[in-house]
């Protein structure tokens, strides 16, 4: 007989340290821990989690949830802007709060380089250093190393690379990555994984997947602050369903506070992409957050949310802003285009952000890619768009109108009904009827 537990957390003002376990049946495990009577709620502090995840609404696989982290209570689905070097390029903290950012990402690789993990620790952690009052997430540093350093190499020990500062050989181990992330102090930290490009085939993918599982144990062992920082495991396995399945099971066995689906957004075709997400979300536990790394196109976020993912990050919205491209419900608006030179409309007439309330496409056309202000203003708008999308996803699920939201979204992006096949396939699996949006 399977013991059924309902896990809910104590609402304390401190980071969650204890977990209530309610049983509705005999529970030898609970008995073993506390020797208490059946059917009673009691406190257990074995599960070291610094978060509480509560699903507030669902539509098939999609879910809207409340994610309580030590520094902030978030609503999912949510998009996390990337603040690589301890800042979102060109935006201040109060602007980010105004826009509705809940969690921002810091890159461990960059921060460990400058200003350095020791310094951040000495000055009280990254929150204090940046004066960011909401939640932070740091990645492991592994991905940057592999993508930025052409001499990086992965061994069982860790990632070996040439220091960009003085060309000395260096090694980033799972232990060290966690140590650095413990110093930085983010609410969510990522395990060091062996990430390979999805475009690669062959035994390397299997090797990377198993290594990722071995490394998660080393990460768990090295993690010194589990009651303040949540260690997320990352599911690897390339595009191979068998490998992905093994990895998911392995990760779930470790009973981590949350899970990420990694190794995607690296150039694979969309049809493979959504299938991996669908497989993983189906196998990951209901009651833990699911983070698809590197996903940033609005369409991809809508599809992944329909399939049951909760968190996303990408440099895309801010990076594309610096090139003069704005995100709008219809898709993209290239502000540098000559057609914008005399367009007196705001970027998006339906957007309520400071930029759309005050500036025309014509004026922005003049300043994008030429003046720092152009970068700032379009970044501001693009992140506002992403936060609005996150909020709309959350609210539409909670209010029971998620399919309608998806249909509206697709209709505006694809007014001619030419919705890509992969989206149609994914929506079918997600159980959302988009036939009215597709061309006959």
């Amino acid at each position, binding site marked *: 007989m399977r013991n059924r537990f309902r896990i809910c957390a104590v609402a304390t003002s401190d980071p969650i340290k204890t977990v209530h376990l309610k049983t509705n049946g005999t529970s030898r495990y609970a008995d073993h821990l506390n020797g208490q009577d059946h059917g009673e709620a009691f406190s257990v502090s074995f599960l070291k989690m610094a978060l509480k995840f509560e699903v507030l609404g669902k539509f098939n696989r999609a879910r809207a949830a409340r994610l309580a982290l030590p520094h902030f209570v978030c609503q999912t689905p949510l998009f996390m802007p990337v603040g690589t070097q301890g800042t979102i*390029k060109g935006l201040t903290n109060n*602007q980010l709060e105004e826009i509705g950012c809940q969690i921002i990402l810091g890159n461990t690789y960059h921060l460990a380089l*400058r200003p350095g993990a020791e310094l951040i620790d000495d000055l009280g952690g990254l929150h204090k250093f940046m004066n960011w009052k909401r939640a932070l997430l740091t990645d492991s540093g592994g991905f940057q190393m592999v993508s930025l350093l052409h001499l990086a190499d992965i061994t069982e020990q860790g990632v070996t690379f040439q220091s960009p500062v003085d060309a000395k050989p260096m090694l980033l181990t799972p232990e060290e990555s966690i140590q650095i992330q413990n110093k930085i102090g983010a609410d969510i930290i990522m395990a060091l994984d062996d990430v390979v490009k999805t475009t690669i085939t062959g035994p390397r993918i299997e090797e990377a997947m198993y290594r990722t599982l071995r490394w998660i144990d080393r990460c768990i062992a090295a993690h010194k602050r589990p009651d303040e920082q949540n260690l997320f495991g990352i599911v690897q396995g390339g595009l191979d369903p068998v490998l992905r399945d093994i990895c998911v099971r392995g990760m779930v066995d470790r009973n981590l506070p949350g899970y990420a689906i990694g190794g995607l957004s690296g150039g694979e075709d969309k049809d493979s992409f959504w299938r991996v997400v669908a497989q993983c979300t189906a196998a990951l536990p209901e009651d833990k957050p699911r983070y698809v790394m590197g996903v940033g196109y609005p369409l991809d976020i809508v599809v992944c949310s329909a399939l049951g993912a909760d968190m996303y990050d990408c440099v895309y919205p801010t990076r594309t802003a610096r090139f003069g491209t704005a995100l709008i419900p219809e898709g993209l608006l290239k502000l540098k285009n000559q057609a914008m030179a005399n367009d007196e409309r705001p970027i998006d007439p339906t957007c309520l952000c400071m930029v759309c309330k005050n500036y*025309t496409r014509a004026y922005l056309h003049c300043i994008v890619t030429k003046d720092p202000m152009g970068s700032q203003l379009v970044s501001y708008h693009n992140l506002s768009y992403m936060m609005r999308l996150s909020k709309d996803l959350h609210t539409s699920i909670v209010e029971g109108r998620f399919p309608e939201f998806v249909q509206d979204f697709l209709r505006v992006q694809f007014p001619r009904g030419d919705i890509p096949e992969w989206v149609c396939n994914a929506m079918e699996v997600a159980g959302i009827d988009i036939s009215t949006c597709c061309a006959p």
Partner: protein
Amino acid sequence: MRFAVTRACGGGGGRARVGALYIGGCTTAPIETPSLLISTRKGLPTFVSRDHLATLPTPDSLLLHVSPLHFLDCPSSKTISNIGGLHQMLGLHEHFFVAAPRDSLESLPESEGTNKLGASFETPCGRRLIKPSAYVEKIASLKPNLWASMADEVPAWVSEKRNKTSVDRTLRWLDECLALDPAGGKTMLGVVVGGSNIEERKHCAIEVATRNVPGFWIGGFGLGENVEERSALLNAVTDNLPEEKVRFISGLSLPEEVLQGVASGIDLFDSTYIYHLTLGGFALIFPFKILDHNNLDFQLDDTVGDRTKINLRATIYRKDITPIVANCSCFTCQNHTRAYINHLLNVHEMLAHILLEIHNTHHYLGFFRAMREAIKGGKFDLFRHRFIESRRIHLTSAVLCS
């Protein structure tokens, strides 16, 4: 717009004055002068967006300089007009824009190309010849609150003949602009030039003073003239301009130069000091209340830089968790530390410049405020002397210590 001198003879041999500039609109409190025109690029500060601009001291921070040359190529005059002019286009409805072509940064008078048809400028769009008619048309679409007539500004080293030509041209273009302006010059500032020639300066000022304009823009300074002879040149101008009308100037950026201008009776300054400081990673720290100290503490501390500013790129700030200036009420000092800005500068992040421009603007506006207090108290000369001494003492000590 209305201007009135509220305190005259505050120093500088009687020329320094405090004034009140009533800019209208929703702002009822006047802007006190001497004050600063905040530099802009295409109408907006280089790094400070409108929401942060709103956190700077008001009404001082409502005064912005704008160069029509930033809008040569786009948007078109028609589009600017359709949008409603500068205030609408920039989302700065309560602000007061003073337009003059020269911005002392990227739009620079190029006197060799200037001819009888128009003034030549180096602009971000290359070298351009601007004719009065095109200039007035652009102004009409931008609708700044005040605008300077077109002038032929020449550097200090040109020949006497060229200098004389510049005065003649400037006067001719002033009259042309007056004639072309649909509003008849109601918001036009007459430009006074004359280079480094006292007689020409005097002559030009007297002529411009006869035109029916609400104020004056003093051009041609900061173009290589001798700092020692500058005061005489400035006085030659201001002594021949009506007391009760407002006087703007460009090219005097540094605090010492501003003090020099104030001593000669200038009211408003278009300064690029903040821009240069910001780009260089410098933050202003000098204390304003230098009149309160009976004996100023001239001992060298170990901050890197002079007593006016600190270079936040310096490694000594890596772990400095204090704000740039203790008790500074600007957004930057209220929210961030020297250590964070040092990091941002090291990793070349734009946020460093945003935070610095906010602080530096706030601080420089404070400097102007302190100057006004000194003038009101009749202590401007002492203020000026002390400020300059405090800068020189540092240099002297540095030399002695080395």
